[in-house]
C-alpha cells in the first residue's frame, strides 16, 4: 500500500493549534492575525498589571502598547525556552520599573485649586467633588483604597512587583520566579515582607472601613 512507503507524519492535535508558541510561529511568517490573537489574549492582563504598578490606567495602556511593540520587534528572539506569558510579563515589568524611576526623577508639580484651568480664556477653576452626601462607609473604603495605592507607591520596586503579581494578578510563585529570574525563596521572602508592611500601615484604616 502507498501509505506504508512513507513514515508516519506527526500531526499536532487540536489543542496545539492556537497555542502561544504556534501563534508566535505564525506571526513570524507575517501572519498579523496571529499576533492580534496574542494581543487579545494578553492585553487585559498586561494593561491590568501595568495599571497596578503605575497607579494610572491611561499610562498603563500606553505602556502595554509599548510592551506589544517591543515583543513584536523581538519575536525572533523568543526562543520558546520560557512561556510566552513569562516573556511578555518580564518585558512589562522592566518597562514599568523604568517608568517608575523616571517619575521619581521628575519634580512634583503642585496646582492651586483657585487657578483657572485655561489661563487664556479664564474659564472655570479646579473643583473637587463634594461627597458630603455619600455614606460614611463608602468614604472610608475609598480612603482605604487610596491608602493602599499610596503605600504601594512608596514600596521598593521589588516588593511592589511581587505583591502585584501575586495578590493582584494571581500568578503562582513559580511563574513569578521565572518572570523575575530569581529563586522561589526570594519571591516568597519579598512577598512576606511586602504583605506585612502593607498590612501594618493599613491597620488604622481597616477598622472603620469593614
Amino acid at each position, binding site marked *: 500500500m502507498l501509505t506504508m512507503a512513507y513514515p508516519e507524519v506527526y500531526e499536532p492535535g487540536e489543542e496545539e493549534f492556537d497555542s502561544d508558541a504556534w501563534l508566535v510561529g505564525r*506571526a*513570524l511568517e*507575517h501572519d*498579523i492575525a496571529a*499576533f*492580534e490573537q496574542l*494581543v*487579545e489574549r494578553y*492585553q*487585559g492582563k498586561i*494593561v*491590568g498589571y501595568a*495599571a*497596578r504598578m503605575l497607579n494610572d*490606567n491611561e499610562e*498603563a*495602556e500606553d505602556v*502595554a*502598547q509599548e510592551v*506589544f*511593540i517591543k515583543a*513584536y*520587534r523581538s*519575536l*525572533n528572539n523568543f526562543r520558546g525556552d520560557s512561556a510566552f506569558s513569562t516573556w511578555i510579563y518580564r518585558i512589562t515589568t522592566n518597562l514599568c520599573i523604568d517608568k517608575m524611576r523616571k517619575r521619581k526623577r521628575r519634580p512634583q508639580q503642585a496646582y492651586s485649586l483657585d487657578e483657572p484651568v485655561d489661563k487664556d480664556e479664564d474659564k472655570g477653576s479646579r473643583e473637587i467633588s463634594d461627597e458630603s452626601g455619600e455614606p460614611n462607609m463608602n468614604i472610608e*473604603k475609598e480612603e*482605604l*483604597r487610596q491608602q*493602599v*495605592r499610596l503605600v504601594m507607591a512608596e514600596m521598593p520596586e521589588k516588593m511592589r512587583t511581587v*505583591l502585584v503579581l501575586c*495578590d*493582584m494578578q494571581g500568578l503562582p510563585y513559580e511563574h513569578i520566579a521565572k518572570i523575575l529570574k530569581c529563586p522561589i*525563596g526570594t519571591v*516568597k*521572602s519579598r*512577598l*512576606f515582607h*511586602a*504583605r*506585612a*508592611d*502593607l*498590612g*501594618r500601615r*493599613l*491597620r488604622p484604616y*481597616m477598622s472603620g472601613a469593614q
Partner: protein
Amino acid sequence: MMKLNESNILDYLDDRLCKKDCADMEEALERSEDKSSDVDDARLAMQALHALVSVEPVVVSEDFWPRLREKLPAQPPRNAMAQVGSTLAGWLWPTTSKWAISARVAAVVAVLAMASLWFGPQRTVTPSSAISASEKAFISRSMQRHVDYVNSPPGVNSLPLPVGDAGSADHNTEQLDDGYMP
C-alpha cells in the same frame, strides 16, 4: 513541629497546608506574638488588595488593537538565517541592472571555485582496508611499547615480542599487558 519560617507562613496564608500542618502552624503562632502579628498584617493586606482588584477592574479600551496596529512595523524582523535567505531570493530574481548581473556572476564563480577546492577528488576508503577496533588497540600498544623501548636506559632486558598477530582471533590484549616488562 511546624517551623515558623516565611515560606511556611505564606503556605498557611494561601491555604496550602494540610489540616495537621495548619493546626501545628496555629499552635506555633500562638506561642510567637511577633509572627502572629505579621500573619494578621499579611491577611489584612491580602484582603485590601483583593478588594481593590474587585472594586476597580481594569478595562481595556476598544481601540487598543487598532492603535497598536498602526504603530507596528510592516513585518516582524526575522533572524539572520531568514534574512540571508530573503537576500539570496532577491538575487535570484531576474534583473536588468549591469551591476547586479556582474555581482551575481562573480558570486557564482566564487562559489564554484570554493566547491572545487572543498569537494575535490578524494581518496576513497574501501571496506577491506578498514581496520577493526582490536587491531587499532594492538597497533597503539605496539607503538607505545616501541616508544618505551627507545626511551629506556641501555642495558635493560629487551621487551618480549607481542603474542599473536592483529588478524588472529586469539589475539588477547590482556596477556600483552601482563607480559610487559618495563
